[in-house]
């Protein structure tokens, strides 16, 4: 394998319902920096049916080139068909780096592609950098259950691959009118060559919890002691008109469902105000909330790492502080209304 043959940074462009996924735009932002540092092209690889017009968005988000596989067989995401397109493209055009969103689709695809290439794949990356000279990708992520960060390298294989958490990288502001080179590719794949078939897609809007869109999140951790103790979090969230978040421990203990989990294996959130109550602040949690506007921590243990990652901290008993906060907040709000 001659590394000189491998050039350029690629982003797998995830699309659904005629839209480019926001994580793909974020990766184009991050990929742009890597490509510029290396002095190489940034390309998107776009696979789907009737998706060619989405190239406009991809160029405006920073890509120089877009490889497009636009065929009916790609109507639904399927591991085998998408993987074949990606392998075909990688074989022909030889990128040095391929980035995927760490979504269920991105992770599924990247795992399959990595096995077939074969190459190394780093999962759920939260920091990316590249060595200017060697082109070595430095992909960092929380490791060992999220208590520490690890930088992962892939020295002997190309392309180097990583899946990247959503909402961690920043998309560039779209440069309206920016264009680039479209490379249209096709592969001969028959429906009967693909062993899976999507029978039906069902949207579930009712049960959906979208804590990643909330302005205020009140998150609770194991420090609340029990399922009953955790109800305090619901009460404060209700008072403030916020959403409820939770640490991994709490979700694993069954006090609340997984869609509420903030952190590496949950959601990444960027609310204007984030309360971390009874949360010690493991790195896997911090990576999911550190970009919040104001972070307020309440914890009994003054040594808890959360106090290194907050804007305001209260060392104290949540069962004393929070009810008082609810009471005083309601009082202040009522007064506010009267004076208006």
């Amino acid at each position, binding site marked *: 394998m001659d590394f000189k043959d491998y050039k350029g940074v690629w982003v797998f462009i995830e699309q659904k319902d005629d839209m480019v996924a926001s994580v793909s735009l974020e990766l184009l932002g991050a990929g742009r920096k890597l490509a510029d540092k290396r002095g190489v092209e940034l390309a998107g690889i776009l696979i789907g049916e009737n998706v060619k017009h989405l190239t406009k968005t991809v160029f405006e988000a920073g890509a120089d080139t877009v490889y497009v596989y636009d065929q009916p067989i790609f109507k*639904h995401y399927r*591991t*085998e068909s998408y993987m074949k397109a990606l392998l075909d493209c990688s074989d022909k055009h030889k990128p040095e780096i391929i980035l995927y969103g760490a*979504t*269920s689709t991105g*992770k599924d695809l990247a*795992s*399959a592609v*990595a*096995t077939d290439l074969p*190459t*190394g*794949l780093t*999962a*759920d990356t939260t920091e990316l950098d590249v060595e200017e000279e060697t082109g070595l990708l*430095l992909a960092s992520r929380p*490791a*060992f259950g999220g*208590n*520490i960060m690890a*930088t*992962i*390298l*892939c020295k002997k*294989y190309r392309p180097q691959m990583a899946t990247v958490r959503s909402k961690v990288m920043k998309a560039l502001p779209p440069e309206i009118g920016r264009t680039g080179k479209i490379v249209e590719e096709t592969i001969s794949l028959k429906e009967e060559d693909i*062993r*899976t*078939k*999507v*029978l039906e*897609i069902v949207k579930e809007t009712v049960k959906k919890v979208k804590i990643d869109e909330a302005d*205020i999140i009140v998150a609770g951790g194991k420090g609340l002691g029990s399922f009953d103790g955790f109800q305090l979090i619901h009460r404060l969230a209700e008072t403030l008109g916020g959403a409820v978040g939770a640490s*991994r*421990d709490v979700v694993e203990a069954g006090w609340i469902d997984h869609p509420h989990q903030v952190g*590496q*294996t949950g959601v990444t959130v960027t609310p*204007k*105000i984030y309360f971390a109550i009874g949360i010690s602040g493991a*790195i896997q949690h*911090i990576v999911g909330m550190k970009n919040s506007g*104001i*972070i*307020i921590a309440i914890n009994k243990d*003054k040594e808890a790492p959360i*106090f*290194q*990652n*907050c*804007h*305001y*901290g*209260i*060392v*104290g008993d949540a069962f*004393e*502080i929070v009810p008082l*906060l609810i009471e*005083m907040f309601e009082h*202040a709000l009522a007064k506010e*209304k009267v004076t208006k």
Partner: protein
Amino acid sequence: MLHIVACIKQVPDTKIIKMNPKTNTMDRRTAPAILNPYDAHAVEEAVRLKHKYGGIVSVVTMGPPPAVSAIKKCIEIGADEGYLITDRRFAGADTLATSYAVTKAIEKIAKTRPVDLIICGKMSIDGDTGQVGPGIARRLDIPPLTSVNKVVEINQEEGYAIVHRKLEDGYEAVRSTLPCLFSVEKTINEVPYSPLPNMIKAARYTPQIWSVDDLEGVDITQLGLKGSPTIVSKVWAPPKPAGGSILEGNPRAQVEQLLSVLLEKKELFEAKEGV
């Protein structure tokens, strides 16, 4: 008769594990080794399908000799057979080298009893990648179905399975040919307490233990650290930010200060109140 193989892993309980702040390594003595919680759901699903359609559940794992206890846990859940592949040459494997070794074990298991279905947990709690399951499927050239949160039907006669795959905003129903591989979400089932006969069986159970030499057609350059394209170059604690201001005083004084911080963002609350 379905033959279902569940792939499992023994992991340190990362919820309990403590880091050594000086060396940035895990202090493994502080953490008990457990069956990866996601894998318990994989085994449970395999056992449920066995009860529904009839068949046999085998579990396979790669790990050090104490991983036998994780296999015993699976016997408690209702698995019938367990296989441990253990060898120093497996050590230091990343996801690519792991999927290679486990695939070799499954190929050997399949020689005596062909495999219809492989089930993995979504990911392990120590590695957190979810990459090994799809890797095994690719190596065996069977379809990988990730994010499975419901098995609708297994039809062995006609050779297909129908499952629901969880999506960000709902699910999709997918039909796949058999054999195939599922990696399952925790929400697929609840793992009940094990019945007493299973516990007794597990206590007495000794799994099949294989070294590299017991497997067939193994390219040892693809095993362990040597066969792993990814390496951990450094492990580090993120630079500690300066930290915030700690609000001092008695609880009432603390809350008062906090309140004034919140009320600076009054517009957030007013919108909610509809004022």
